[in-house]
């Protein structure tokens, strides 16, 4: 029983491995070129199923794009040339990591801006609190008469 359970669990995890979309027939003979192709493919968005890279996607268009990447690499293109070609057809949207440029400034700097705002707000808040505390400490001193009365109250038992 336990053995079976273990086996079932093992099989379950085996099935959880990411399915490789790259068909063995697509793989290039040159391992260095193939590695570059995989690298490029991982950064390119599949335009059909938009949250997958073409390396992960089983869509036909993704396959055709993978083949195109490999074809261009074999023809001697640099990685940048290949990516630039695809971007020239589909726009920056195909890049899973958006480039840093004017149109994407808000995207890249937005989070930093919000963290900065939060820090400024927190700083202002704590400074004000400290100032408020300082104010309470610096409450007007008691006059001699008041001091005496206070002493009496503390010493005496309500007399």
């Amino acid at each position, binding site marked *: 029983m336990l053995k079976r359970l273990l086996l079932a669990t093992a099989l379950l995890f085996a099935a959880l491995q990411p399915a490789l979309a790259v068909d063995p027939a697509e793989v290039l003979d040159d391992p260095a070129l193939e590695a570059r192709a995989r690298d490029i493919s991982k950064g390119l968005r599949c*335009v*059909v199923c*938009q949250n997958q890279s073409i390396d992960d996607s089983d869509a*036909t*268009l993704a396959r*055709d*794009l993978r*083949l*195109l990447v490999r074809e261009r690499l074999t023809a001697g293109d640099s990685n940048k040339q290949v990516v630039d070609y*695809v971007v*020239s*057809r*589909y*726009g920056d*949207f195909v890049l899973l990591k958006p480039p840093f440029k004017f149109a994407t400034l808000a995207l890249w700097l937005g989070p930093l801006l919000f963290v900065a*705002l939060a820090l400024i707000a927190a700083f202002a808040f704590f400074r004000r609190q400290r100032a408020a505390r300082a104010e309470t400490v610096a409450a007007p001193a008691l006059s001699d008469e008041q001091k005496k009365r206070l002493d009496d109250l503390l010493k005496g038992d309500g007399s």
Partner: protein
Amino acid sequence: MNNRWLYSIPLAIFCVLGIYLGIGLTLDPKQLPNMLDGQPVPAFDLPPIKDRGAKGFASTDLEGDVTLVNIFGSWCVACRTEHPYLMKLKEQGAVPIHGIDWREEDPDAGPRWLKRFGDPYTLVGDDPRSKAAIAFGVTGAPETFLVDQKGVIRYKHIGPVNDEVWKEVLQPLIQQLRRNGSQTGGQKGGS
């Protein structure tokens, strides 16, 4: 306290963000920008599909007249919806329509489809490996490109062409391009 208005800043930021994100919700992520707008058609030279003679479809065929380039496939359901309208445009002689038969696994499927539903195309090229489709930046079928007399892409329509798209977008653009073309004969005109 005199800087009470400071408290409204987060609210203002929230509202601005909300408006932007709200606009974002109305956009369709499937509608990719036309990267080729105003650019010459990419170079391609596709072989013919079966039963359509020896002439395929190449980028050089696109000079001379305003044309539509329609990416279709026999597997594509929306193309089937679009097809009668393309037939109608052909009957009216509105504009030459060229076809790119995209991603047919069976080379007979495209010709069979055209035989069954009618053939609205002047030229048809076979693109089983998405060569031309990727060059055009196609993400799905059908897509239709409006190409001017000099072979420059002027408009891309994603999805089926129908009466609304034709009357409101394509026809006015075509008329305008034809007017400009005949008026200036290739020079820049200021009409």
